[in-house]
């Protein structure tokens, strides 16, 4: 389990990454309700919700270290 850097809730990394459906052409699709993640300075961060990531971006988006 990862921890959301903004709200502190646990985030199931496997669930965020797991493909739950397919696009029309067969690319793997994830469930948007399962949280999200971001590749930031060469590292993945996991978030409870899209709103948490938006706050993260507002705070650290321009290069400040989390």
């Amino acid at each position, binding site marked *: 389990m990862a921890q959301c850097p903004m709200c502190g809730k646990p985030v199931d990394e496997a669930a965020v*990454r797991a*493909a739950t459906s397919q*696009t*029309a*052409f*067969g*690319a*793997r*699709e*994830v469930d*948007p309700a399962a949280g*999200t*993640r*971001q*590749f*930031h*300075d*060469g590292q993945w961060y996991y978030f409870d919700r899209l709103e948490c*990531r938006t706050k993260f*971006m507002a705070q650290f*988006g*321009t290069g400040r270290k989390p």
Partner: protein
Amino acid sequence: MDFGFTPEQEALRREVRAFIAQHVTAEVVAEMEGHNEGLLGVTPGTSRGPAVKELFRKISERGWLGISYPREYGGQGRDRITQYIVEEEFARANVNISTAGSSAPMILAAGSEEQKRHYIPRLIRGEFSFAQGFTEPRGGADLASLQCRAVHDGEDYVINGQKMFTSGAHYCTHLYLMARTDPGAPKHKGISVFLMRLDIPGITVRPLWTMQNDPRAPTRTTYGQSRTNEVFFDDVRVPKTALLGEENKGWYIGSTGLNLDRVGAARYLISVLRDEEIINWIKENRFDGYSPADDPAIRDKIAELWIEAQVCRLMTMRSMSIVEHGGRFAYEGAAEKVWAPEHGARSTETIAQMLGPYAQLLNGSPRAIEKGIFAHNVMGAFQSQINHGSVQVMRDQIARRGLDMPRARKASR
């Protein structure tokens, strides 16, 4: 300078109009309803029906797909003005025949012979379609600050990272991706472009819904799509043959492709179709003896929109002419990308003012005008000023490339 069309070009326009009147049937329109993917919908795996596929077969039979592409790559080897005329007429009928998108000009300019022969004919036929993996969450409009990494591993590259606002990733077959291959180089110089299928291991797509999604915008909504995507790359392995052009030269390849993609009737009509639609609507409707077409205030506004629309059209024609004649296409596409979406935003706001409160009702409301397209367009017009190069970035390009001004100082925080 001649602004007219030749008799042959005028004849072609009449031929295309007659074809549309005969073949873009109610059945075709019904199949397109609910899908605003353009003609990319003919790609296998998407939900287009048999009527649209048959329409495409007939368009292809007449040689109207890939008109200006070389014959050896499946095109017709004709001029861009001819392409413009055909695209303009089809775009007016809400049928986008520019299936090749920005990927084909890029592949044609920078690809290996094998890449050109593999991709371009299939793009023209609509068998392949490329989503554009450029933007990242952190970079926003500063595309060159991208962080997605591609690292050599034997005969392959291994890619890790993330892209955002990847429109079309949920219905396209392929992706062209900008990734950083030299993190030590200045930011514009360490980037490469890769071509890859979207269904390879390690790629996952996550839906992102735009404000046009709730309720879903009707098909004829001009601006943007209700869904876009994030795309994640986890140890995605691609062969070295997936590299487009030279390693670390991707910035120049990508920006050339973006610039060339801004040339064309479909892109200009994104902003102008709404003007034509509202002009027709105003002429055709009367309300308890009141005709908006007789109202001096409305006539004044409509005339103003029409003048602005003609500027859009002339800018597009100029760009196509420059590209056709091999001229230096440095900033004209950027100027078009500022004028057209900003005109579109002014246009949708003016239309909303003219139509009053009913123009604010969205799709699904029983009193919505034309299924709410005017209301959905107001929202989408703002999006069009950001996607495919924001108007702020475009202005900066005009200042540097068109007016020879130095790079702007960074704003202090």
